């Protein structure tokens, strides 16, 4: 039996038309889960970049990261991942469009543009 079927063209058209129509947005819950998993993987091989260094690079911190940054604790602690104990992460991983709203939080960013 040859690797050719009279239906090849029709199936190929189906595959092509699906390719053209597919949307490109992932669920916010999935993005949250992937981000959390990446942070765990990163932390597994040593400390994360400290919140102080992140801010010096011009990136904006959320309110909790900023608290960690200004706290009188060592840089080693500032490299710890505060998202691990934050309810934004829990809500972000559990719900689509979670009820979290503070600026510069990745789990808020994953929700996408504000809906009117």
């Amino acid at each position, binding site marked *: 039996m040859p690797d050719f079927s009279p239906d090849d063209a029709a199936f190929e058209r189906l595959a092509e038309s699906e390719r053209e129509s597919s949307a490109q947005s992932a669920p916010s819950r999935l993005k949250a*889960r992937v981000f959390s998993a990446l942070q765990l993987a*990163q932390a597994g091989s040593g400390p994360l970049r400290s919140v102080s260094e992140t801010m010096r690079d011009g990136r904006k911190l959320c309110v909790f990261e900023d608290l960690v940054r200004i706290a009188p604790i060592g840089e080693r602690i500032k490299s710890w991942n505060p998202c691990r104990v934050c309810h934004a992460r829990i809500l972000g991983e559990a719900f689509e469009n979670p009820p979290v709203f503070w600026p510069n939080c990745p789990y808020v960013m994953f929700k996408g543009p504000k809906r009117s």
Partner: protein
Amino acid sequence: MRSRGNLPDPATLLTRMVGQQATRPALLADDLKLVEDVLRKDRKATAEFVETYAGAVYAYLRRRLPPRQDLVEDLVQEVFLAAWRSLSQFRGSASLRVWLLGIARHKVEDFYRDRLRQPESYDEDAHRESDAELVMDGHMEGTELEQRVQAILAELPQPYSLVLLWRYWEKRSAREMAAQTGRTEKAIERLLARAREQFKKRWNDA
């Protein structure tokens, strides 16, 4: 020079093309900067990495896997974790998007290979493909078409949906599939014939 219909005029097209060529190095520089920051374990860069590329990876995997949300999401996560493990090898010869989708493609092929390795019992009557054609409705397109295709793939036994996805969405020949699964080319062709038959039956009956 006037444009024809909805197409911009040639001068505008040329300007756009030149602009795209000029911005391509800038886009790759952005990719390299992002990769550098993710490798430094900057949490904001990592969030930006996920936000920017999760959609493309998700859409790619959704089109190539059985329509099971948990399966697709697990594989999206696997793609990003694999990307993290090999991110230091990214050199910018292609865009970060293309590089990530390359990882996704490998994951998809691993999935197909693992599930199509199992032998099947061969039914002589079942392998004959009927003369019935796939009746395409010219008015159906976009999301409606995608949903119908996904619904039928979900109904098929998994080996059938996977072999169709691998053949027509991933554009692999029966020979390539046979080489990856350890099955004979004839066995793959028989499986494809049965899969096409079952898909056509459901498509034309709907």
